[in-house]
């Protein structure tokens, strides 16, 4: 199975974790949809980048630990432990899975699955 979708995701993770929004933007299609299972709503690309900007203000450190990526016909599925250290000292350490849809070299859809209560320390809503 073509692993190019997972290669794009692997490369996309680097600017995400390095807080480089401009570089992140380059991996995302203009028609991007971001969906969170615990919020029950979808974001467009501009909303997503705004959301990430706000989140990074309270996240001192973010890591995707023990990441495993599985290539699918539509893109890539990544399973990892989401580790966050908040500016105020709180910690998040929770399993997370993300389904990426990749088309024409760009990420078109991101579906994130996590247990909502595990994110309580972030204080981030939406």
């Amino acid at each position: 199975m073509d692993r190019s979708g997972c290669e794009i995701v692997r490369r996309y993770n680097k600017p995400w974790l390095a807080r480089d929004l401009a570089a992140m933007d380059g991996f995302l299609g203009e028609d991007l949809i971001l969906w969170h299972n615990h919020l029950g709503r979808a974001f467009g690309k501009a909303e997503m980048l705004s959301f990430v900007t706000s989140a990074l203000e309270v996240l001192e450190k973010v890591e995707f630990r023990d990441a495993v990526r599985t290539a699918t016909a539509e893109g890539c599925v990544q399973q990892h432990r989401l580790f966050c250290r908040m500016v105020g000292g709180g910690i998040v350490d929770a399993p997370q899975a993300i389904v990426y849809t990749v088309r024409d070299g760009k990420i078109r859809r991101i579906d994130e699955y996590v247990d909502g209560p595990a994110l309580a320390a972030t204080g981030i809503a939406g």
Partner: protein
Amino acid sequence: MTEATLDSIAAIARGWEAACRSLDSDRIVGCLADDATVWYNFQPDQRHSPAEYRSILENSKKTFYNQRYTKMLVHLHPGGFVEQATLEGDTPNGVVETPFLLVATVKGDKITQIEEYFDTSIIQQAGARDG
């Protein structure tokens, strides 16, 4: 990975979907290898046997009843399949819709590992149990 192997995984995924939609716990567990394990994101240190999984399925029906799948999108890959699903059901506090992700590992003609990602707050808010 040959096309035949992906075809066989597709057949197992179809069997799994049909079993899940039937809500027949014996049929669902019948898709699993005897030594299969089932893991939930909200209990990351535990792995359940097929018998324990059957019990979890049966218990969930007591407070989350009349279950039906409103979405089931399957992604195949050489080692198994990934399912994006939404399960809807009735609870003492009304109808609850819970989206979840299931990652299935397949060996031979059986599922050997299931990993499921839920948001437990959705079901807890409705007064039903996890799972």
